């Protein structure tokens, strides 16, 4: 008998839930707008990448594949020595392995990786979940603008002017 109020309360919960609209939506017909900074897919800004391998090494499930080679770039100033730079040959993320932890985005020192809220990239074949650097580059269009800095904050980095 002592349980009776709780039992009635439980019935009330289910009855009220039944009358409220469902939280789920019929997906292909209606789509939810994800939060602007949702972790949907990782985009690559290729010109920022220095092939430092930090992301590949920090990835917990080893789903980032990077290959690159050294090459000479023209000097910065006239008469200077040609610089040694790394060129990116291959940058693949295997989304069948990725667990969306975002460590690669956090660890990238040159802002080459970004989160995009885009999520509709399921494939009938698992091999096609391996996105190469062109595909990862296309996701850059969907990356939202970073949130505005707080008032009074200094903009970091070289070439402020």
């Amino acid at each position: 008998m002592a349980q009776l109020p709780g039992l009635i309360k439980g019935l009330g919960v289910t009855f009220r839930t039944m009358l409220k609209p469902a939280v789920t939506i019929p997906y292909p017909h209606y789509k939810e707008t994800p939060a602007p900074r949702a972790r949907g897919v990782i985009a690559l800004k290729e010109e920022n990448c220095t092939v430092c391998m930090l992301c590949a090494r920090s990835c917990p499930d080893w789903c980032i594949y990077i290959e690159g080679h050294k090459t000479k770039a023209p000097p910065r100033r006239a008469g200077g020595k040609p610089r040694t730079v790394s060129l990116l040959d291959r940058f693949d993320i295997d989304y069948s392995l990725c667990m969306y932890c975002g460590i690669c985005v956090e660890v990238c020192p040159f802002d080459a990786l970004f989160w995009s809220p885009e999520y509709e990239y399921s494939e009938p074949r698992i091999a096609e979940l391996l996105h190469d650097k062109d595909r990862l580059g296309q996701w850059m269009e969907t990356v939202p603008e970073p949130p505005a800095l707080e008032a009074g904050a200094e903009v970091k980095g070289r070439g402020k002017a």
Partner: protein
Amino acid sequence: MIAALDIPYWAQTAIKVAVALGLVSGSAFIFAYVFLYKIMSHMQSRLGPMEAGPHGILQLLADGVKFLQKEDLVPERADRFVFAAAPVVVMISTVLLYVVIPASPTLVGADLGAGVFYALAASSLSVIGILMAGWASANKYSLIGGLRAAGQLIAYELPLLLAVVGVVIQAGTLSLSGIVAAQADGEIFGLGAFGQPFVLTQLVGFAIFLVASQAELTQAPFDMPIAESELVAGYMTEYSGFRFLVFYISELATTFAFAALGATLFLGGWWFPGLDTSGGLLSNLVGPAVLFAKIMVVAFVIFWVRFSYPRLREDQLQTFAWKVLIPLSLANIMVTAVLKVAL
């Protein structure tokens, strides 16, 4: 009713079989769609099937065909004959229940003088089928499930019966049509127009009836015989394809029959204020619809409880039946009997 028309015996039989099959599977489909697909989903804040047909109404077709496509498996060491016979026995107990429930003054399979007695006896037949299924599967989970079902159905048969005895005492008849008539002719404080559904005087009996039928139907919170997380569906573990479908249909159809029984015994059955209890076209047309509406109300309560509560423990189940429900229903009978004589 069919006998009144001048048609040969074989055609009568064919019509009866078709009507029985249509009723049993039709009621099971209605319950599966309305309660299992839609009400359950909305109680869990989701929409349920939406793609197949408008609001997923054709999902039943897809699921039914899916069961028919499945391989008909029989475990190697199973007792093949008993294994195959068990779903049929369960189904027969379900079909037998439909015979006595009156849908109007004349629309009744057989208006037995001891209709209540017959219905409760027929409903307890299913336990034999469940025991057969549990034993013949040659699977320890099935056997445990079957034995749990046997213990549970025996324990809850008593309060179910005793709860109905109160109604029988008040109506003074065992016939279901007689009970409907008694409710239609009854008076509330001298007002005769509304009849007197027995739920008003037998509220305790109705509550006990609902709880006990919940257990009889092995629905949550009394679903230990088919507890998925402990017994992997209990006596149904080894069944696949069409035989599983038969179990499933008979489970839902038995729920329909019990809801119909509850509606007939406690809510006035097919009768509605203004209808003629002795027959007539209006009663025969409106009666089934009224009964159906009342069935849906009772079934909603049954499924509402099912979707809300977690499973009880086996000893809690037995304690509840023997220490709470049976004494309560005995007291209910005593009070009803005394008041029947005194008033």
